[in-house]
């Protein structure tokens, strides 16, 4: 008699825990050919608000870590991902319809991207900050700081490399984040959440919501305790992106606008995804005896 397999329940990731949606709703996730794969949690507005609370609570601790420590924590994510290769490859084959080889390459690129960003943690300050030679007897230094709680609408197509490419640059500098996963391809994000939970990332630093953006995006865009929002997941949907940018003006969030089309995530990322969620703080002190 063949063994009946044990299937996984795919849940949200909020505050380091895996709750179902408080709404009790779920939705069907299918593979690239439209066959049923699993039921995933359909995040609600309340889930989005809970995720913001968790991210805010985690912010002082995470931003207060040393840059060296944050770099190691992000690097550790890459290590644990490497450990879960078969699971990610399977998820990418199912969700994105890739061959095993292509899925493997996508995973390699995702892990490498994390490693690349991990190394930035303790270099960013030196590259984007500087001393200022003011015309007077003052010490004057400008340094970058994380902007706070950031909402990221992750790309819809690239469900792992895209996800990692928008998430890592936000957390590496000390921000905490609420990410909405690709609505149709959420499973790599849930598996990624399981990686986070078993690595050294403190609970609440990364919160992952699955489901339709219609339910969560407006809540995140208008939330008064979110400091910045990245609309990348709305690539090619200018109407919705504009509506959210208007909502985001309520508390003058930093907005990263949606591109016309999803970029090629294999390209050199550059600094701008990191600098978009940084503030510059300038400190003055008199020089004298």
């Amino acid at each position: 008699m063949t063994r009946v397999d044990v299937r996984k329940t795919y849940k949200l990731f909020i505050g380091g825990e895996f709750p179902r949606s408080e709404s009790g709703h779920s939705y069907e996730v299918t593979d690239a050919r439209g066959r049923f794969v699993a039921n995933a949690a359909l995040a609600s507005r309340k889930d989005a608000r809970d995720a913001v609370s968790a991210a805010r609570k985690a912010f002082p601790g995470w931003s207060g870590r040393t840059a060296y420590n944050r770099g190691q924590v992000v690097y550790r994510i890459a290590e644990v991902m490497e450990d879960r290769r078969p699971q990610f490859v399977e998820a990418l084959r199912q969700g994105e319809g890739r061959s095993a080889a292509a899925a493997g390459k996508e995973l390699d690129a995702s892990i490498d991207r994390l490693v690349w960003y991990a190394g930035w943690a303790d270099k960013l300050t030196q590259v984007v900050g500087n001393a200022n030679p003011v015309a007077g007897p003052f010490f004057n230094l400008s340094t970058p700081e994380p902007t706070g709680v950031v909402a990221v609408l992750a790309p819809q197509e690239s469900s792992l490399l895209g996800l990692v490419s928008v998430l890592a640059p936000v957390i590496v500098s000390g921000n905490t984040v609420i990410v909405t996963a690709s609505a149709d391809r959420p499973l790599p994000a849930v598996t990624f959440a399981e990686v986070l939970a078993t690595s050294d990332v403190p609970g609440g630093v990364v919160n992952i919501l699955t489901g339709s953006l219609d339910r969560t995006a407006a809540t995140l865009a208008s939330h008064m305790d979110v400091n910045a929002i990245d609309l990348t997941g709305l690539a090619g949907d200018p109407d919705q992106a504009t509506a959210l940018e208007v909502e985001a003006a309520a508390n003058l969030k930093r907005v990263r606008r949606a591109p016309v089309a999803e970029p090629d995530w294999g390209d050199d990322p550059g600094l701008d995804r990191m600098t978009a969620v940084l503030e510059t703080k300038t400190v003055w002190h008199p020089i004298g005896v």
Partner: protein
Amino acid sequence: MVSTGSTSGANVFEYAPAPESRSIVDIKPSYGLFVNGEFVDGHGRSFKTISPSTEEVLADVAEADVGDVDLAVKAARRAHSRVWGRMPGKERAKYLFRIARIIQERGRELAVLESIDNGKPIKETRDVDVPIAAAHFFYYAGWADKLEYSGHGTESLGVAGQVIPWNFPLLMLSWKIAPALACGNTVVLKPAETTPLTALLFAEICQQADLPPGVVNIITGAGDTGRALVSHPDVDKVAFTGSTEVGRAIAKSVAGTDKRVTLELGGKAANIVFDDAPLDQAVEGIVNGIFFNQGHVCCAGSRLLVQESVADEVLARLKRRMATLRVGDPLDKNTDVGAINSAEQLAKIRELSAIGEQEGAERWSAPCELPDHGFWFAPTIFTGVTQAHRIAREEIFGPVLSVLTFRTPAEAIEKANNTPYGLSAGVWTDKGSRILKMANALRAGVVWANTFNKFDPTSPFGGYKESGYGREGGRHGLEGYLK
């Protein structure tokens, strides 16, 4: 009008008036718009600019309507694509150096004109506004041919639409125009409707410098003109300094466009005094923090957080010092505190101060005689203020200080950050490690430790949270004007 020395006590010096002559300025009866290198008529309803210290009408100023804004943007576009955007950086630099020099050469004239139109003391326009404005042009001139080393690229954005406030008219103009031009952009700038005169004099300076027509366009008007400018479809970049409310409206209006935006908005800065601070220096810092420029400063230290153990001592010294502030004629070289910029702003300051009393805070104003004409408000402090009071939460933008106390550094941090704003903060203590701890913990774009209200063209300025985004000044200030 005569400067009124304080009449409060025996220890106060009396000063004879020392007025700066206004003969150096030549205010014309009426002003047009500066478009494509020439002064032209506006098609809106003209308005009057007055001296807030006397209510004297100074000039009739054109209002740019939608059509005028369009002409100005077209002139800027032409100048960008045909001349300025292609000019080698080293040549652009020389125009900016020229402008810096002319501002220095005509510094006295600019200072007097600014004091007349704005109401701020000549001491301040002469020593702060005008020299720092010139320094901004000098600083950014040098960047024009060095952009490849900036870390922000070398490509200009195009046409910048810039809207500036009335509190530092010429200085804010320089913060906006100098980096924009250095990066190869052209500019349409709208000064505030109550303080257009130095911007219009700056237009003459552009002519004297032989700046190519259309590189700088100055259009005057009020909110409608500003809205027409920032929403113009051919503007690539919007730079605004002003209220958070208007900043929010701008952020909404540019949604869905490709426009780049920098916003420098309101603030409610905490100025934190610890018990080990050198108290006399701290008191000077408190006074400078809130009474500099009549408190019309977005980064003003409008919330004094003083450690409980020295609160009585600090307040006693503060009141003593406030009693020596000379409030009066902006052109008198002795004057410390000038006129409130407009009747509208005065009404707002009075309203919030009345609310402060109604909500139970205790009001104390420096004993000083205020002139009969013009808009005046005596330097004022409120004690017994709690975080729930509106005067502790809302930007008053006037010479009104709300005093709160704290016991521990953690409480000071908590209270200082308990605001949707995050523009600036001050810390006064003799302990180095405490300064650095506080500087790290304060969520604000500028932290002044054992000093306050210091500005420099090399030093980035701008806020966290609802105080806006982007930085002006320094290498960071280039980012908002490059692709």
